[in-house]
């Protein structure tokens, strides 16, 4: 079974249809997703800005990691659950949405960036620069990458709502169709 067919099957499940057609459930889940964005991305951005050495300079980096990161992790769980539900309500269209695909890739890159930084030499030697207002170049790089990635993730997340490049919309370019994974063979040309 291809992923497309899996999404088609998912879209036809009772709960997916129920969520999709609900009067309030979808809106409430989306509002939770947006509210949690403040906590999740908000705190992630604070850590990034500290790594860049531009704010909370008197707070040791380890303090932010131990005291704020648990909230980031908890809110990430809420983000994922609400995000999965939003996807589940409109699976097939979202699966073929170019902004959703971009967001998925960007999320992986953000995870990779966080993982590389956490396991990297700079962070392993945190004790040496923990309380210093100025941070090493490696920390600045990780912070800048993370910041850019989160801005791009929020951006692409918001854009999922738009259907410009959807398979059901008139073809914009072959390139976009490839990214969206559109199959237009059986489609009537309008």
């Amino acid at each position: 079974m291809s992923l497309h067919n899996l999404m088609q099957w998912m879209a036809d499940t009772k709960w997916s249809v129920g969520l999709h057609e609900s009067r309030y459930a979808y809106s409430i889940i989306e509002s939770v997703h947006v509210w949690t964005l403040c906590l999740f991305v908000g705190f992630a951005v604070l850590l990034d800005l500290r790594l860049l050495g531009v704010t909370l300079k008197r707070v040791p980096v380890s303090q932010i990691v131990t005291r704020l990161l648990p909230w980031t992790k908890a809110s990430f769980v809420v983000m994922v659950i609400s995000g999965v539900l939003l996807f589940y309500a409109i699976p097939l269209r979202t699966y073929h949405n170019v902004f959703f695909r971009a967001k998925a890739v960007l999320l992986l890159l953000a995870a990779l960036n966080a993982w590389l930084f956490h396991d990297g030499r700079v962070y392993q030697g945190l004790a040496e620069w923990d309380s210093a207002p100025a941070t090493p170049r490696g920390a600045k790089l990780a912070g800048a990458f993370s910041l850019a990635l989160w801005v791009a993730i929020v951006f692409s997340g918001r854009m999922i709502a738009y259907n410009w490049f959807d398979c059901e919309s008139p073809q914009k370019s072959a390139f976009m169709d490839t990214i969206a994974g559109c199959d237009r063979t059986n489609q009537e040309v309008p």
Partner: protein
Amino acid sequence: MLLPYFQAIENGAIGATIRDSLWLFPFVEAFHLVALAVIGGAVLLVDFRLLGLGLKRHPVAELAWDAQPWLLGSLIFMIASGVPLFMSEAIKCYYSFAFWVKMTSLALAIIFTFTIRRRVTLADDTRFSPAVYRAVGTISILLWSTVGWGGRWIGFS
């Protein structure tokens, strides 16, 4: 009473330009959302501290001082991006309950943040009791959350 003004705003050049463009509204809206994350972080960092969560080993005033430029900067960015969004659909906003909820709570949130909350957070840690801290933190989170939810629900109506 206000409807003619909203109509004039909607028919103005900025509103029309945004409406006529396929990309402009989503683009501005996405930046509005990025700034929301920043203002969320700046507000919640201090409010969490007031509630005894997060960076509780650091003085409230220190955190509030560091968060202030980000709070102010993102608020200005929010308003600068929010106003054109509003101008492109002023009449819809006029009839939207969520819009009025958002504007009322926004006014209250701004007043509260720059008067009472500012006074409490920038004072010495010994000046106010934990009960005052908790009250201020709770009110701030509730007010700003209402602004956010109201904003999201303008889009659902």
